[in-house]
């Protein structure tokens, strides 16, 4: 398992992750899992990522008012919030999991999210 795990809505990130790593735009130990919609993401997937060795986990969904499935990224943000609560109860920094939003096909917010989470994983 990579140290940083990202879950991205299929409607965000339009550039191949390997290309971004090759260009040095994102950390090498980044793994991205694409989802049909971040509303599909459940809390156990976020926690399992940590159990599998990730030091930071993030989710990038569509802008709240632009979700293809209307409330998918809103649901994802609520699940990230609950995952933070559980991490806190386990004495793990809740900032190690975060929700981000991106416009349709936008890669830059995903790159930025990966960088932010890389810095948090070193904290």
């Amino acid at each position: 398992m990579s140290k940083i795990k990202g879950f991205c809505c299929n409607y965000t990130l339009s550039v191949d992750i390997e290309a971004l790593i090759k260009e040095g735009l994102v950390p090498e130990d980044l793994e991205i899992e694409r989802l049909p919609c971040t509303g599909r993401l459940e809390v156990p997937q976020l926690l399992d990522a940590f159990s599998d060795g990730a030091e930071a986990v993030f989710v990038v969904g569509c802008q709240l008012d632009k979700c293809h499935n209307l409330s998918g990224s809103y649901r994802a943000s609520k699940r990230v919030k609950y995952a933070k609560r559980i991490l806190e109860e386990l004495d793990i920094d809740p900032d190690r999991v975060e929700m981000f939003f991106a416009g349709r096909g936008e890669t830059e917010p995903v790159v930025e999210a990966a960088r932010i989470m890389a810095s948090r994983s070193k904290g």
Partner: protein
Amino acid sequence: MIIAERKPMKELLEMVSDVKRLLIVGCRGCVAVCSAGGDKEVSILAAALRLGMKKAGKQIEIDEDTLVRQCDPEYIDPLNDRASDYDAVLSMACGVGVNFIADRCPDVNVMPALNTTFYGANLSSGEWKEMCAGCGACVLHLTGGLCPVARCAKSLSNGPCGGSQGGRCEINPDVDCIWQQIYDKLSSLNRKEELRQIMPIRDWTTAGHGGPRRRIREDLLP
């Protein structure tokens, strides 16, 4: 429905600290409806315990299952056949389910994952409120359907105490005085004169003060 909430993770981790093989069993009854112990919550708790145990440097194998209910024998008795597979069963039912498993499954080491809190209603997503105390002697026909036993901090039977101020309870300004609400409700129904009738001193034996309660309907007995 019966409202419950998950115990703090620290308490749960301590509970299972020596367990190597754990079965988490949810319930699709009340606790599933109040988002405390259904399929989803079982899966979240399993993931959280795996992470917590890993962080503590301990090994644990966790299986997950959810029963239709944990308050009927036909659903929990099969746990007897599975007892040897696990060091412990962590029940995500209310206290009824935990007790019933303990009663009927002698070889199962059952533990509670939830704190059972009250009988309540769902005000909105994520918010529940106590509405009934299960006292066994309902007076709701006298109080406009509003319960002074469950919803008055002092369970008063004949009107508010001196701490009722501006329609609020003295224990917390966010809590409505139920006796003010009873008065308002009966007034709107043109029944407020009924409040002049003094309720007799309550017999609390039906509320469990006479020991564990049992109900029998002979026409349904086998």
